[in-house]
């Protein structure tokens, strides 16, 4: 089958972000989604450190240490963008003003619980940042992650075994194999990659799946 690579996953998520959406892209893999947003759509990127209308990385040599994204990488501000303080920035998240946030994950449960901040390892230093605020704040929470962990276990699970970030907060999962909605009636498979059949996807996924009547084949970018 044509498993998506990480850039293809980012491109696939980008397709679903409509013009005019206010969007926060989490640190790590989700940040790449910005590279694939269609140039003909005006989309508003929010960064929790106080930016709305975040633009691409600056040209080399033009970096400004006071103009960074939440991952502390240099960015720019588009014309029409705005700066604000952390209180206002998190009011945007927690008050339900963001349309979409895209987060990475260790696990997502059948009920939409998200685990992405802590491995639970006894000697790990916990760090949460804005993950819990994003998880519960945006109107729609998209997760992007590999379907299987490096050791081959499915990251979609009946119940999270890692400490959760938020309860029942995930709306849609994008993996390298499929696009899956979390609905009141369970997990609904919207798309699968070319060459993957539903039975095989279900075999890999320890949670009951339903194939959407309109299910499509993912077209890799």
């Amino acid at each position: 089958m044509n498993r998506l690579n990480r850039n293809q996953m980012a491109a696939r998520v980008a397709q679903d972000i409509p013009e005019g959406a206010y969007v926060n892209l989490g640190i790590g893999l989700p940040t790449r989604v910005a590279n694939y947003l269609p140039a003909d759509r005006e989309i508003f990127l929010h960064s929790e450190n106080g930016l709305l209308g975040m633009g691409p990385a600056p040209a080399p040599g033009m970096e400004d240490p006071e103009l960074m994204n939440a991952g502390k990488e240099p960015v720019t501000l588009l014309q029409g963008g705005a700066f604000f303080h952390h209180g206002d920035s998190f009011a945007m998240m927690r008050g339900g003003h963001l349309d979409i946030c895209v987060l990475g994950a260790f696990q997502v449960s059948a009920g939409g619980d998200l685990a992405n901040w802590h491995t639970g390892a006894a000697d790990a230093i916990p760090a949460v940042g804005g993950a819990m605020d994003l998880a519960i704040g945006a109107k729609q929470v998209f997760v992007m992650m590999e379907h299987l962990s490096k050791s081959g276990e499915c990251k979609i699970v009946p119940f999270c075994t890692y400490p959760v970030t938020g309860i029942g907060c995930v709306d849609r999962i994008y993996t390298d194999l499929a696009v899956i909605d979390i609905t009141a009636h369970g997990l609904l498979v919207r798309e699968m990659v070319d060459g993957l059949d539903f039975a095989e996807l279900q075999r890999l996924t320890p949670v009951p799946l339903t194939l959407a009547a309109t299910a499509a084949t993912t077209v890799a970018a």
Partner: protein
Amino acid sequence: MIDKTVSSLEEAVAGIFDGATVMIGGFGIAGQPAELIDALIAHGARDLTIVNNNAGNGEIGLAALLRARRVKKIICSFPRQADSQVFDALYHAGEIELELVPQGNLAARIQAAGAGLGAIYTPTGYGTLLAEGKETREIDGRHYVLEYPIRADFALIKAFRGDRWGNLVYRKAARNFGPIMATAATVTIAQVGEVVPLGALDPESIVTPGIFVQRVVAVPGLAQARVA
């Protein structure tokens, strides 16, 4: 291309439904979106719950909306004024419901709605008539009243300048409730003295980022409040 500007006041208030909760900015006439209120009167929605600091001054703006009998209930801090005769008459006739809220609690409850808080413990009003029947709690030796967010379906506000993304700046004391109401309404509608090109507003000085604004309508030549 995203363009939140609309070309008429009618279009700006379209969709305001009977029974809606509508926040209206302004402290007295400063920051009161008088032309949007006139458009709301023409639009015709009834049984409105209005959130404003006052309950109308003179015969224009909010007072005219009240006189047109469109308002079921008003949530405000200071209804009684020298020129609040329209409200006073309706209130004495039992034709309008009043929820009186201390001004700081009004602001804090609007902010709580905008910021997604479930409730707040506020120091204001403890031990007074306005806290009767409300839950209270002592925290670190001080007494607080539990107050809940005030949300709205629509907010009508007045700003000085805006752009097509909905970014707003205000003018002097006309800022008052505008920025916080913008955060607490599903649809925020701003009348602005001038629509400026994207990028013309300094990103360091934008008071209301466009994320909080859904519609912008220019009311040219009225950068200042209209005097009755």
